[in-house]
């Protein structure tokens, strides 16, 4: 469980299991719709209390990414962020691999990416917080 010991920057949106990191989807038991994160109300059918957790977003396709050079408090610039499309119409904001790793170049728009959970920010008291990070999948860059 990669960095699963870290406190998340936001509760209930990502986690990891034996297969690796995943985003937490909320699958509606009433309409079958999927939302990002467990939440009380289904955004599709508006039923209350019908969502159940489901692992989604282990892989996705990078939609767009930028390198942030002026960072808000708690973040260390430069870092790359972007949007990853993970299927069923869901799009996830996440940190994105910025440099080549072990010969795999950083992903560009349209490239397949795989999720990890890594430390992304530091609280004022020094506590590291985790967040989603998508990296390129070897051999899939276009």
């Amino acid at each position, binding site marked *: 469980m990669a960095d699963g010991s870290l406190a998340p*920057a*936001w509760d209930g*949106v990502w986690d990891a299991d034996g297969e690796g990191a995943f985003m937490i989807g909320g699958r509606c038991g009433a309409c079958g719709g999927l*939302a*990002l*994160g467990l939440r009380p109300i289904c*955004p599709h059918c508006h039923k209350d209390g019908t969502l159940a957790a489901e692992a989604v977003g282990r892989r996705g396709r990078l*939609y*767009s*990414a*930028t*390198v*942030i*050079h*002026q*960072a*808000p408090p*708690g*973040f260390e610039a430069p*870092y790359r*962020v*972007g*949007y990853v*499309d993970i299927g069923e*119409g*869901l*799009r*996830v*904001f*996440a*940190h994105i691999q910025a440099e080549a790793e072990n010969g795999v170049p950083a992903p*560009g*728009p*349209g490239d397949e990416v795989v999720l990890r959970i890594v430390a*992304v*920010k530091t609280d004022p008291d020094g506590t590291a917080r985790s*967040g*989603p990070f998508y990296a390129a999948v070897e051999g899939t860059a276009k």
Partner: protein
Amino acid sequence: MKLRRAGIMGVGLTPFDKYDDVPVEVIAQRAVIAALADAGIALSDINAVYASHLYQGEVFGQRVMRGLHAPEVQLVNVENACAGGSSAVRAAWLSVGTEEHDLCLVVGAEKMGRGLIAFSSADLELTLGNTAPAQYALAGQRHMHEFGTTAEDFARVAVKSRHHGALNPNSRFREDVTLEEVLESRPIADPITLLQCCRNGSGAAAVVIGSEAWCDKRGGPKVWIEGSGLRSVMGDSTERDLTNFGATRTASAAAYEMAGIGPEDIDLVELHDAFTVGELLHCEGLGLCPKGEGGRLVRDGDTALGGRVPVNTSGGLISKSHPVGATGVAQFAELTWQLRGEAAGRQVEGAKTALAHSQGGTGLEAGATCVTILARG
């Protein structure tokens, strides 16, 4: 719905700057006093006040107006992030148009801190390190990917707008900048560099909107509001076309339909250029050029003074800075001066029809866009 005609009778501006030692109420009062004088009315003539701000606390409009001994009238504080000012103008126009009131005052004001705008609401993206410039950068990166738009194309917007700002005595930054200076300024969120970002600023703007009878009483050149669209993006971690960036297309379609005109009829535009990427994408969204061709628009000089449809003759937010609640109202001041033929040094000759566009929001999950069309009478 059939609305009666309503026009802009008067405008006032407290030019955007730092104003470290001036209370925001005073900054706002100066704009109100200027607008009342321009309209040729007394404060006691006003039926209602719409006050736009984001960070100024409870009953801000009332705090502004009590210092001017305003009469006991309807006062609504309007918050729609950076589109608050334009939303307030729209509300005042509808109030006159629907005959609720005959004469309305709009005031937008803000006193801002420095650096990145600090959003106060909880947002997953912002918590993970997204920033306002990065939101625009992500839209710009996708535009580059899909349409071959270049970093230079975005940078040219700043060169163009800063030149306009150099011609506008109300602009805060009045020096021309070169393409090289823009590209080589400090990177903020690729492809956006420092000179492609609006600065935070403080300031205020005010507009008086009156019925046709009131406008006749003022005399002089008339400026009518012909139509307005206000739409919101309420994305929820769902796939959307980021190269549209915001609700510009739907808001402008509503405004054009109401005014009975199309983008080809627009002589000049003030639009929300918080970042250069936004200007190009919004130009496309307004229909000033086909989708994907925003880069060509600025390369060819179409949006420069003297071009086909000048954009941000005031210098835009890039030259003026961005006091959030005032920004949208200030656009109406610039367009009113232009349509009256009073925009010395930067006048669009023969301007008859103008469009105001502003956009605001937090993260990319919820935002508002207001598009309003004005015409010389």
